[in-house]
Each structure stands twice: as structure tokens, then as C-alpha cells.
């Protein structure tokens, strides 16, 4: 079992004819993902990576029944791509693009609020349900099918966590990055709700970082609603306040948003804490043993 995507997911790639789009579409197809369509304005009628390309999302959906869209469109045009996918009724959109202006994402956020489209990202590594479907840039070979859900704001730290789990023989149900921007689609809480409901997930690992209050909201949800065990690591204990650590959302302003605060919130909610990023595997192993 898995959440959000599985072997039946029919994937559309927006921006399939770009360099990154083409390269990673190929890797997704090689992994076994059912990529059914691509979309690049002006390239309609051609094929790319062996799939038909359309000029508009609505046409791609009509012709191929795509039900998930993966976006590799450059930042200045990425918000428009998300809006188009939602307007065309695509229920799940995964946006890899980094560097989308905040104002564009404010617009996207308010537009999606009244609609049925779920957005993962932007500025995220995508999602993988090991052995079933890989959408995005998560290295498929470090993943292993199993029963732990992993959700992260960061991409590479997600790979690190998956790698540590797999090396210890701990497989994953679904892993995904919610994105490192201050405004993203799905939140930790959305992810935790899905993992809580998924019969194929036994435990969840959350990778937080400095900035914002997503981790505190996750902790509140875990405390009041989660029955499954959760562990977490929060990156950025050593980051100085007021400086942006790469991710647009990773900045400590005022007293809120420090790693210390987030770790404290998780601890208070009964979440097992990995103090070091090197201990992720060990901590999850402990979590599963003590169930």
C-alpha cells in the first residue's frame, strides 16, 4: 500500500521537452512509472521520451486520462502550469520547480483553496511509492518497498533518510518532499493524515527544518490524532537567525521557527527525535522495535 500515487497513477509531465524534464521523465519511466503524456506549448503532436506531447493540459487529460501531473517548468512559468493543471481538473500536481516568486504562490494557494486539486511542492523532490511509482527526482535505487512513510521539507535530506532506512532493511510505503518554500501545497499535517489512514504504513519519519511553524502544527496533529509511531529530525540547529539557509522558507525570524522550538514541540507530542542526521536509521529502527 501507499499514499497519493501507486502503480495505477497515470502521469502527465508538464515541461517534458526541457532538459531536466526529459532526463527525469526517462528515469521515472525506467523505474516503471506509467507516464502517459507530456505537455509543452508549441510541441503538441510530437512525442518525447516515447509519450505523446500536447499543447494544453486539458487536451492531454482528455486524450490520455492522466490523473497526476509532474511539473518541470521554469520558475517564471511554473505557477501558470500549476493553475492550468488545476483548471483542467487534475487531482494531484507535483511541482519540482525551485524559485517561484512568492506572489505567484500566494495566487496559486488561494486559487487551489476552493478546488479539489492537491499540490505537492513546489521546490520539492517529488514523491515515490517504492516499487510502484516514482514522480520527480528522488533516486529510485536507494528506496526499498516497505511500511514506513517518510515526509520531508528538504530533498537531499530525504534521500539521506531513505538511504539510512534501506541500508537497515527498513522499506518505505511512500516518501515525499513537501518543498522548501514558505508557501507550499500539502503540509506535514496533510501527509500525516494520509499515512495515519494508510493500512500499508506502520510508522512515519518527518524531516523538518528551521523557519515557519509547519513542524509545530505537525506536532499538534500527532499529539491529538495520530495512533501510529512518529520520529523526526529537524535540520538547522546551527543556523544563525535572520539568514536564509538556501530554502526560501528556511529562515528563523523572531523567536519562532528555531530548530530548538520545533524539536521541543515534537518531543512534547511523543515523537522520537533523531538528534543527529546520522542517526535517522537507528531511531526509526528503535521506533519499529518498540511498537
Amino acid at each position: 500500500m501507499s499514499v497519493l500515487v501507486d502503480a495505477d497513477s497515470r502521469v502527465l509531465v508538464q515541461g517534458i521537452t526541457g532538459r531536466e524534464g526529459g532526463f527525469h521523465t526517462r528515469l521515472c519511466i525506467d523505474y516503471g512509472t506509467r507516464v502517459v503524456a507530456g505537455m509543452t506549448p508549441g510541441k503538441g503532436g510530437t512525442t518525447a521520451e516515447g509519450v505523446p506531447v500536447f499543447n494544453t493540459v486539458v487536451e492531454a487529460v482528455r486524450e490520455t486520462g492522466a490523473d497526476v501531473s509532474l511539473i518541470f517548468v521554469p520558475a517564471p512559468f511554473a505557477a501558470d502550469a500549476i493553475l492550468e493543471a488545476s483548471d483542467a481538473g487534475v487531482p494531484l500536481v507535483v511541482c519540482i520547480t525551485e524559485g517561484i516568486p512568492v506572489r505567484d504562490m500566494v495566487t496559486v494557494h488561494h486559487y487551489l483553496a476552493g478546488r479539489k486539486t492537491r499540490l505537492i511542492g513546489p521546490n520539492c523532490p517529488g514523491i515515490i511509492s517504492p516499487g510502484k511509482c516514482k514522480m520527480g527526482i528522488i533516486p529510485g535505487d536507494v528506496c526499498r518497498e516497505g511500511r514506513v512513510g517518510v515526509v520531508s521539507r528538504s530533498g537531499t535530506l530525504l534521500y539521506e533518510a531513505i538511504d539510512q532506512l534501506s541500508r537497515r532493511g527498513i522499506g518505505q510505503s511512500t516518501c515525499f518532499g513537501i518543498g522548501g518554500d514558505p508557501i507550499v501545497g500539502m503540509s506535514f499535517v496533510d501527509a500525516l493524515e494520509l499515512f495515519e489512514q494508510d493500512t500499508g504504513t506502520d510508522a512515519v519519519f518527518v524531516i523538518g527544518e528551521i523557519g515557519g511553524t509547519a513542524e509545530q502544527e505537525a506536532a499538534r496533529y500527532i499529539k491529538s490524532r495520530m495512533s501510529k509511531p512518529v520520529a523526526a529530525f529537524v535540520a538547522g540547529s546551527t543556523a544563525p537567525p535572520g539568514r536564509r539557509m538556501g530554502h526560501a522558507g528556511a529562515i528563523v525570524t523572531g523567536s519562532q521557527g528555531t530548530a530548538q522550538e520545533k524539536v521541543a514541540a515534537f518531543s512534547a507530542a511523543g515523537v522520537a527525535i533523531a538528534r543527529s542526521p546520522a542517526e535517522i536509521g537507528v531511531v526509526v529502527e528503535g521506533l519499529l522495535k518498540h511498537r
Partner: protein
Amino acid sequence: MRIHEYQAKKLLSDFGIPVPPGEVIATPEEAAAATGRLGGRVALKAQVHAGGRGKGGGIRLAATPEEAAAIASQLLGRRLVTHQTPPEGLPVNTILVEEETIPQRELYLGVVIASACPVMMASESGGMDIEEVAAHRPEKIVSVHIDPSLGFQPFHARKLIYGLNLEPPLHRPATQLMGGLYRLFQERDCSLAEINPLAVTNDGRLLALDAKLNFDDNALFRQTEVAALRDEAQENALEVKAQDWGIKNYVKLQGNIGCVVNGAGLAMATMDLIQLAGGEPANFLDIGTVNNTERVVNAFRLLTGDPEVKAILINIFGGMARVDVIATGIVEAAKEMDIPVPVVVRLEGTNLEEGRRILAQSGVKVIHATDLSDAARKVVSSIAISRGSA
């Protein structure tokens, strides 16, 4: 991106927000001339990218052109230190000479994004840090969430105006001023637009006495006029160099272990790990998705150009970034420059085997690490060793 006060006031003025008459100057002579033109008492305000200038001696009053010139010659060319600057301060290259305004009341007005929504905040406690007010007298802050699909509406203005207890004659100018600030925030892709203090003058006008505008770096591609306001002299020299070299995410820190990592989260975690292992990171550096080796070489240029760096840790988990490209970059860097400090390398992910092969065949001397803990331990101990051997 940050800009100077005088640049912010020009933008405010473009959006119909009243600011005091003033001129920006770069020499004592210009200060005297500007003071003469303005007539009467003036404030000389050092233009640096930091707050706290008043207490730091960066805001001074002058009654005559001569006095203004004297103050300007004291300030110009100096580095101003405030609680918001780096310890070494920021260079004062320009001064805003402004007609002195004695406010009857000092208000606060600002716009930020919170919970994915523009929020306008106002307070009767102007002239002080809004975080201070929020922490100690939260009842003094009134705020409105502005649904961007609606934009700034009259009812938003009324909520703030009655919250500020403004006199009726100020209601219309306040509505216009607030509307202008919101439009500026949106149309110029600000991340912060703050007027503090917003003065109510003795003759019953509203006037933006000080202003701070920050901008969304991701939107500068469509804000060319704003981007042109950048003043690199106010930024860290190494950070400016990093930008020029295509390394967007580099932050100078106080330690001595230089880091090159791909991905912001892994870069933060690497810093954390170094500290857990007893070391101190010299920088945050997310090398991003590298498609050519040049950026890796530049990262080495940057770190070897930082005299504080005593060891370098390369930590790569390839996804979008490819390990073979990184490895090739390390080899090229070693050829091009002298790397006087130990280099610890930990590689994982996309095209790992190829990357390992490239490094091995090159004969470049690096310390290999098997995993994260190993990498942190090795880089910290490498300093001890090189110190020991020195």
C-alpha cells in the same frame, strides 16, 4: 534583497505615499548644498542596510549647511556599527539629508506575507521594533489579512484606521496611503514593506519618516528596476563573490570548516553534524543542481579564498545533481588551484560509481568518508591533525 532608505522612500513616493523632502548626498559639499536648498534644520541619515542607526550614531541633526557638512565628513567613508550590522559594521557611502520632522504621533504600518496571505499590520506604538510590540503589547497591533483575490478593500482600511484611533480628517489620506503600500508590496514583489515610524505631523498630515522595503529574490527577474537598486557594498564580500560565481546559496558563518553540499536541508544537517562532532562550520553552501563542473571549481575558489577555512567537507547525495559531475569538478579544482587544507569527501546517489572511478583515477588527494558521521568525524579531526602537523 534589501535597498537603502532613500531608495525605499522614492518607491513609496511613486506609489503616492508622502515622504519628507530630502536629498541623497555622497560628499560634505553636497550635504551643505542640500541643507541650504531644504532650508532650516535637517536630519542626516547614514544609508546602510541595517536598523538601529539612531543609537549607533548614524542619524544626526544639523541646523546649518556648515554643520551638515561637518557631520557628513564624520559619517562618510566610515563603517557604521549597530545591533543589526555585522560586528565590523557597514560602510556609509551615502547620506540622506532630510527636512527635520517633529511628529505629533508615531505609528507603525507594515505588510508581510503570513499563512500564504498578505497581512497589513498597524500599531499606535510606532518608532519601535514591531517584534518588540508584538512580544510585549500585542493588543497594540491591529492587522488585516488581505485575500489577494480581493486586494485591499475599503473595509480593510477602516479596520486599521479605527484601530489606530486616527482623527476623521486623516481617514481618507490613510486609506490612500494604505492602498498605495499594498499595491507597492504586490506590484514590486516585496517580502516586507514597512513604514516605521509613520508620522502624524503637527499640521495633521501623514508622513513616512522611515521605510524599509525587502524584495523577493525569486521575483527579481521581473523587477529589473528594483534589481538595479542593489548595493553590493552593503553585502558580505564573499557572498557577493559567490553570487557572481553562480553559487546562489552561500552564507558566511563564523567557524573554520568549509562545506560544499547539495540541497539546503542536507547542507543544514551537515552544519549540525559538524557541530555535534565538535567543529564549527565556516559557511552554509548549497551548490544546487550542478550541470557543469565550473560551479564546483568556483566553490573551491570561494572556500580557499576564505582565510578562516581550515578544512573542507564535500557532502553530496546526488538526485538532480550527478555525482560524476561533482567528482570531475573536484579533480578540475585540484588541477587549477592549490588547496592548502584537507578535503573530506562523502558521495552518494545518481551516477555514484562513475564519480568514484573519476576521483580514484585522478589521484587527487582527498579523504574518503563512508557516511555522514564518518564524514563529520574525519573533517573535524583533519583540522586537529593539520594543526598538530603545523
